[in-house]
């Protein structure tokens, strides 16, 4: 059965969010700049949000969208603290390159 709203099937949204999520994963893996990695994490969060909204629309359930509101609140808190930590790292190490920050390496 083809579940579609306005002619757009749910599978299209699944594929779109998965592609966006994997681009975020790819960014975290291939970049060394901590800020870019952070932005890619935001991209992954947004991909999941989009999928949640799509599911909520196709299943006719508002709860999914309420959860997206909470995820946005958590993402905002995460960005504020994360960027503050990045600023502090930069002040101490004078770099945002993650491969320079290897003091914990055994």
């Amino acid at each position, binding site marked *: 059965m083809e579940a579609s709203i306005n002619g757009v099937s*749910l599978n299209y949204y699944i594929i779109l969010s998965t*592609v966006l999520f994997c*681009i975020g994963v790819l960014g975290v893996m291939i970049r060394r700049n901590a*800020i870019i990695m952070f932005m890619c994490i935001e991209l992954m969060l*947004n991909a999941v949000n989009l999928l949640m909204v799509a*599911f909520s629309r196709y299943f006719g359930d508002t709860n999914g969208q309420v959860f997206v509101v909470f995820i946005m*609140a958590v993402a905002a808190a995460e960005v*504020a603290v994360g960027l503050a930590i990045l600023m502090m790292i930069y002040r101490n190490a004078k770099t945002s390159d993650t491969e320079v920050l290897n003091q914990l390496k055994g």
Partner: protein
Amino acid sequence: MSISQYIFWFLSFVAVLSALIVVFAKNPIYSVLNLIITFFAIAGHYFLLNAQFLAAVHIIVYAGAIMVLFLYVIMMLNLNKETEPHKKQYVKLVAVVAAGLLMLTIIGSLKGAEAMVPAGIVNNNIGTVELIGDKLFGEFLLPFEVSSILLLSAMVGAVYLSKKELH
């Protein structure tokens, strides 16, 4: 093809293209600007899915607040093309293969979800401000209040961390 299909394809194309530019751009400023474009495309998808409230909140929170924060940090760190570090070529290749495999796995595992969609009449006005507010201040009142405490503690933490001297 209907008009909303055209809009869907256009928004998807814009979102994926600018997401790729975020990952592959040499200059961090271009990454931020393209991430903003991606967020606007996702907000467009929210409109397409009839989630007006979330679309508005998404633009305000992400494009309005979070990306400004990112731009400020990049400005203060004075990052540019010359200071940008690079990983080795074979690491990049392995990462691309791994991400592609992950994509296939996730698509394969989520594909079956379409069969579970109820066939009945679709409720067209979920996601309006009235309904979300009703849920948020009724069933989800406690999580809503807890998230305000989370935001407060994040604010305190950010201010504390960015102080000049930590003792």
